């Protein structure tokens, strides 16, 4: 993990005479006063840092507020502060970073600590059936608590003038898809604004983590978003390995990357088909579904699970690759890459599909930057960021992927990027298989000391996942926070659908394909 930014940020804090204490870790972190919480963010914003995540934790009677910043090539910095005892509030970062708005609403819902100066403290994860004073992540709250059901309604922003109408969609959607609510304000068929309401699949994952040991927690991490199970498990394991100072064998890192790239391919292929299906081009859907199925079947045969769940474990991987398996993966990856290349040509020539996707749902580069969108969505808006480069985790530090960036930020760009990234993954998988080092695939995880932290970033197919955890006594998880890329990317969708016709919404939503489960936790 690349934490060079911590040193740079420390220098800046010194220059601005903002007092801090530097804890070397790993991971290194900067301990500041809660009164300087917003000043640090202000400085970070001026220096062009991206706010990666903001979250809270509790230790004994004290509450802590944490944040992570990033800068391309310099990696990550962690900052934290302790809330003054008796004063359960902290300065909101919302005035500086839009991404903080929802993260702080979630903190407020789960801890009942208040971001001072936050413009919108409506519940976010907290459901209407929850009691008023719910604070499930506080240590004195038991996971097994069953509340008496409340009734209530969520105050949507709604139409400002009565020029059009509101269209409520969901939480249950028409297709085979996760639940979430979209409240459109529309004039005729044109969308003026979209307001999202998520949280419907909140399963209390962060609370669950706190009653688990590292192996059980790693399995749970793989269920945060089933379609990104490899990447989520990897981020969790990396954080746990960092906290316990366990060195994962290099062979295991290579296998982890091979599986993660296969997961990237499977999802990009599935999404391309689904997007084309949303513009009534079922040929591409059928071809992509066929290739996705081929990938899943090989995974099932070689690794025992079609979606690769539970293949990564703390300390390494649970499955090895012999020459026969390597050959099968290599041959199939190549064959599928070649087919996707042919399908790309067919797609480019398909005028009626191109008519639908070019110019639809454009996200401006400036907005992408302000929101801090990550992953291929960011890269489709000229944001040159990818955790495989910026976090420099093994084995990508030895095999830097070619990062594809384009401009336009429309559905066409989000499709192009996926086609390109599939080919990059094919190249990476081939290289990783060729250069697979010999050795062990698993190192027993040492028991991390009480209070040790871990922080890791992994580039899932959607984008950067970050996982932070703190261990308690005897290797139990004391706190685990996961920021799925969807937590930020959902914001992008609200912007891109302005001025598109309602029938183009499914296409745009699919072009983002944010995770509801990954967001809600």
């Amino acid at each position, binding site marked *: 993990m690349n934490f060079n930014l911590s040193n740079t940020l420390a220098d800046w804090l010194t220059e601005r005479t903002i007092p801090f204490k530097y804890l070397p870790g790993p991971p290194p972190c900067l301990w500041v006063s809660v009164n300087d919480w917003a000043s640090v963010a202000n400085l970070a914003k001026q220096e062009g840092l991206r706010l990666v995540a903001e979250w809270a934790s509790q230790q004994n009677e004290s509450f802590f507020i944490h944040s992570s910043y990033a800068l391309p090539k310099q990696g990550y910095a962690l900052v934290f502060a302790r809330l003054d005892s008796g004063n359960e509030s902290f300065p909101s970062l919302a005035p500086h970073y839009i991404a903080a708005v929802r993260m702080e609403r979630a903190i407020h819902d789960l801890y009942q600590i208040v971001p001072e100066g936050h413009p919108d403290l409506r519940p976010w994860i907290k459901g209407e059936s929850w009691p008023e004073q719910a604070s499930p992540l506080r240590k004195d709250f038991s996971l097994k608590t069953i509340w008496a059901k409340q009734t209530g309604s969520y105050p949507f922003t709604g139409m400002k003038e009565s020029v059009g109408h509101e269209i409520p969609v969901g939480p249950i959607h028409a297709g*085979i898809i996760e639940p979430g609510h979209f409240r459109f304000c529309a004039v005729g068929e044109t969308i003026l604004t979209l307001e999202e309401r998520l*949280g419907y699949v909140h399963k209390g994952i962060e609370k669950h983590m706190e009653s688990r040991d590292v192996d059980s927690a790693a399995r749970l991490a793989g269920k945060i978003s089933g379609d990104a199970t490899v990447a989520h498990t990897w981020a969790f394991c990396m954080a746990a390995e960092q906290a316990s100072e366990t060195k994962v064998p290099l062979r295991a890192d290579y296998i982890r990357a091979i599986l993660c790239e296969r997961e990237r391919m499977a999802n990009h292929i599935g999404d391309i088909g689904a997007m084309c299906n949303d513009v009534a081009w079922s040929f591409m859907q059928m071809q992509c579904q066929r290739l996705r199925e081929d990938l899943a079947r090989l995974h099932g045969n070689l690794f025992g699970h079609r979606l690769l769940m539970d293949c990564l474990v703390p300390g390494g991987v649970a499955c090895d690759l012999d020459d026969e398996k390597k050959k099968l993966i290599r041959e199939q990856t190549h064959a599928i890459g070649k087919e996707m290349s042919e399908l790309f040509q067919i797609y480019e020539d398909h005028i009626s599909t191109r008519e639908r996707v070019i110019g639809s749902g454009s996200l401006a580069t400036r907005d992408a930057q302000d929101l801090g969108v990550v992953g291929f969505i960011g890269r489709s808006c000229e944001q040159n960021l990818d955790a495989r480069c910026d976090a420099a985790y093994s084995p990508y530090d030895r095999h830097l992927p070619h990062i594809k960036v384009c401009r336009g930020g429309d559905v066409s760009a989000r499709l192009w990027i996926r086609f390109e990234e599939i080919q990059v993954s094919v190249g990476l998988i081939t290289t990783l298989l060729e250069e697979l080092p010999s050795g062990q695939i698993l190192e027993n995880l040492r028991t991390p000391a009480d209070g040790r932290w871990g922080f890791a970033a992994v580039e899932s197919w959607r984008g950067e996942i970050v996982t932070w955890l703190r261990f308690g006594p005897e290797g139990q998880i004391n706190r685990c926070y996961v920021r799925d890329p969807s937590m930020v990317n959902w914001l992008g969708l609200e912007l891109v659908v302005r001025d598109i016709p309602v029938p183009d919404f499914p296409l745009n939503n699919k072009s983002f394909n944010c995770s509801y489960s990954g967001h809600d936790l």
Partner: protein
Amino acid sequence: MGTITEPLANAKNQIEVVGDTLDQAIQKRFRGSLAIRQVDAGSCNGCELEINALNNPYYSLERFGIHFVASPRHADMLLVTGPVTRNMETALKMVYEAVPNPKLVVAVGDCAVCGGEFGCNYATIGKVSDVIPVNVLVHGCPPTPTDLLNGILMAIGQKG
């Protein structure tokens, strides 16, 4: 390439027929024309990937006369995933009430069958059968498309 649709294999994961079975005459009516509404009541989206695969050319769900519909009002069967989050409880109950009788419910995946990794706590109710009546349980995390197809066909008495 030609036709790649395969004959239906046997399920690998456990499938249980529970609850009331529909009158055989009604079950027979569903064969050749079954409309399914899928509801995600809190899943991690792994089950959704496998349900979506039912429409791919290998499994080709529609050759059995089964298709997915956009509204519960058009449905004969609910396919429910997830450990029923408290935030989805009302929606799940409303969608169940909206499906006209006679109807069937299939709980898909370990979370829906028994609460899976999550169970019953402040955020999740757990198994779907604690919220609405369920006819068939398809175990798995997630169940494969073959398991799903077997479970759906068993629910309409088309497979033993």
